[in-house]
């Protein structure tokens, strides 16, 4: 079978999707041929899920067309696309919670399974059981979808997608939040499906491995810093059935820049949220010592933690889009200790990010991604922080902007003596400014390196970032 001569199964041409001032997809064109296994990789925020949403019809696209089996489906609703043979799983599983596993599949068989004649009830029951058996879920057929474990949910989503008799199956990060052995299990399943006349698009996080030789170390000279230390010991945290952190132990000392490295879905953001009090740990301790006083972060509310001088720059920036730049900055100074220093901090913010000075009255939502990231960091500075938590500053930015943003964070550490804990998946950029680093995989710290050189020489790093593992 010469695939070159075959007409493409799916053709995406010149697709663009914008959310306000943010362009998620810019003129994307993709062709997928029948029987292909198509991998879509890229860091978080690069638009992978957006593309899937456009293909499956969850989002309307402005310019651009989607053609499936020689039919223009750009204007079709999602269920029409499903009936034509496009099935998908979701990044965060979306089961029908009030139903059992078999009922979940029945929905697909009732509505989407395109067969020549209407199948009788026993026939459909057979189809369903054979799919469940293949997915290893036969014993769970009559179990409520809410009682499934994370890996079972992933399998059920794939089973439900299979029950629609797809020609094209799109798996959106089916491995996120799973342990290593579970990842293998689901991967095997996906591969076994691919052999059966089903074309597969698989989205996963595999770091773009572009090693840059020039990486400079942070200079040794720093501003003197006051005593501060963050100690996290044997921390577990998660969301319902998903365990995002398992026995995490790390520490950050005054004046350091510590990098928390890991690809997406490994628990970096959860750890940052734990420290900021947004997620409550299930086990373990977190303590912050400032000027000789030790505070138990696990017992404090988010606002109390901010009051101690901990500022979080959240992933995806979380600005107030309808407010101006200046208003966003002012809201950052809500903390009592910061209100006294608004003028000083504002001057400092503009000194650090001169570009923001000219944009003071612009609405935050209309700015570019790079400008938004600057504003998010500047907003955190307004709270006079002692410890700055930065969650994935590189999300959605171009390589040049990533490089500039990381350099700015390095400056903050050096010139202001800020202690920084930064979560990043961009290894090469992060180690430019980091003193030390941790690597987190499936919620566990697998590497704790005391220097950047040690990180770079590590085998796991080579495997994760320099190609090799899915």
């Amino acid at each position: 079978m010469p695939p070159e001569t075959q007409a493409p199964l799916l053709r995406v041409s010149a697709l663009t999707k914008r959310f306000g001032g943010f362009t998620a997809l810019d003129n994307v064109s993709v062709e997928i041929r029948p029987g292909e296994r198509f991998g879509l990789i890229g860091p978080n925020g690069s638009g992978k899920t957006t593309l899937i949403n456009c293909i499956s019809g969850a989002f309307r696209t402005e310019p651009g067309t989607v053609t499936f089996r020689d039919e223009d489906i750009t204007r079709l609703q999602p269920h029409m696309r499903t009936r034509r043979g496009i099935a998908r799983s979701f990044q965060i599983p979306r089961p029908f919670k009030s139903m059992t596993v078999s009922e979940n599949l029945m929905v697909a068989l009732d509505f989407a399974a395109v067969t020549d004649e209407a199948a009788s009830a026993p026939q459909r029951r057979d189809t369903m059981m054979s799919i469940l058996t293949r997915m290893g879920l036969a014993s769970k057929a009559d179990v409520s979808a809410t009682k499934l474990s994370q890996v079972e949910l992933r399998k059920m989503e794939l089973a439900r997608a299979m029950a629609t008799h797809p020609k094209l199956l799109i798996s959106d990060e089916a491995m996120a939040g799973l342990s290593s052995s579970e990842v293998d299990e689901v991967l095997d399943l996906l591969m076994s499906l691919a052999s059966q006349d089903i074309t597969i698009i698989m989205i996963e996080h595999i770091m773009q491995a572009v090693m840059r030789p020039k990486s400079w170390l942070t200079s040794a000279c720093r501003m003197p810093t006051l005593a501060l230390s963050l100690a996290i010991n044997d921390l577990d945290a998660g969301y319902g059935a998903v365990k995002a952190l398992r026995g995490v132990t790390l520490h950050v000392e005054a004046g350091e820049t510590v990098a928390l490295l890991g690809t997406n879905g490994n628990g970096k953001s959860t750890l940052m949220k734990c420290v900021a009090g947004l997620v409550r740990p299930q086990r373990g301790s977190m303590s912050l010592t400032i000027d000789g006083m030790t505070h138990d972060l696990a017992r404090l509310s988010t606002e109390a933690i901010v009051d101690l001088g901990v500022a979080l720059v959240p992933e995806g920036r979380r600005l107030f889009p309808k407010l101006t730049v200046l208003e966003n900055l002012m809201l950052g100074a809500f903390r009592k200790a910061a209100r006294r220093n608004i003028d000083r901090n504002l001057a400092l913010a503009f000194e650090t990010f001169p570009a923001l000075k000219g944009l003071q009255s612009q609405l935050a939502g209309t700015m570019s991604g790079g400008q938004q990231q600057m504003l998010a960091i500047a907003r955190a500075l307004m709270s006079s922080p002692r410890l700055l938590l930065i969650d994935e500053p590189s999300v959605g930015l171009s390589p040049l902007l990533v490089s500039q943003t990381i350099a700015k964070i390095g400056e903050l550490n050096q010139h202001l003596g800020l202690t920084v804990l930064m979560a990043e998946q961009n290894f090469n950029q992060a180690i430019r400014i980091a003193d030390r680093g941790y690597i987190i995989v499936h919620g566990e710290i697998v590497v704790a390196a005391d220097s950047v050189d040690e990180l770079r020489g590590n085998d796991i790093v080579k495997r994760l970032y320099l190609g090799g593992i899915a």
Partner: protein
Amino acid sequence: MNRNGILFWVGAILFLVAALLMTQVIGNEYPFFACYVILQFIVLAVAWSILGGYAGYVNFGTSAFFGVGVYTAVFLFKAFGAPLAVQIAAAAAIGAFLGFALGLLTLRMQGIYFSIATIALTIIIETSVTNWRFVGGASGIQMQRPPVMSPFNSYVQMLFFVQALLVVVAVAMARYIQGSWVGRGLQALKDDELAAECTGVPTLRLKLLACVISGALMCAAGAPAAMYLQYADPSSAFNLNYSVSALAMSLIGGTAHWAGPVIGAILLGTTQQLLTVTISSEVNVLVLGVMLVLFVVGAPEGIIGLIRRVRRNRNDGEG
């Protein structure tokens, strides 16, 4: 037809025969007055739960549909002297149309926004009717009952039997929807609309269907009310009490099964009738509120949920 289906229809026919026998045997009119209201609430609660229970779109506009039913009957009777059957059929048709319009709202609105829009719908329609002179405007309109048809001895008895028929129609529809692909699709979209779409469920079409059926039944239930009271005025025809009662009865009975709203309506309706006679009609609302609170706290799945839990425990005990 399976065994359950046969049982259901035998039960339905027995119910209608019993209702008919009642009208022949009992001479006193009061039981029919009271039972009519209970039957009317059964239809409203069952209709409500088709949209609110199966599809999860909480409709506060039951009174809008009910009132439109009342005034459709009033208008047809005054303008053309239309018979009761025509009044009900026309009300159902208009209710279906109104339901379709409501269904289009779900395109853009979900959750609390949809519910607020249904309240707005009630107010808009009530205001329009209040300003419509032909049907009496704000001061209401007196209705003269036409002569009763045999085999009934009084008009109220006939209305009672008609409402019993509507109950059978409503319950049969709800039961069919629950057991069919329509019900499964509604349940899926209630759980997760995007996931349902991506599993092939035509969510908009199903929501429209649920709105149309629910609306038609509500309006049909309202149509005989004008003749029942021999009077209609906007503030009682569009009374928010209908919305609250239909919702409360469904929730207290449980929306997971068609029998839930029926049980809820019988329970609450009977309690309300007893209280009206023994204490006062004002206590109704208080009782409704208290029961709703008790159930939301103690049995959020309603009576149906309670029954299922007991059964499951018993099965676990045996196993």
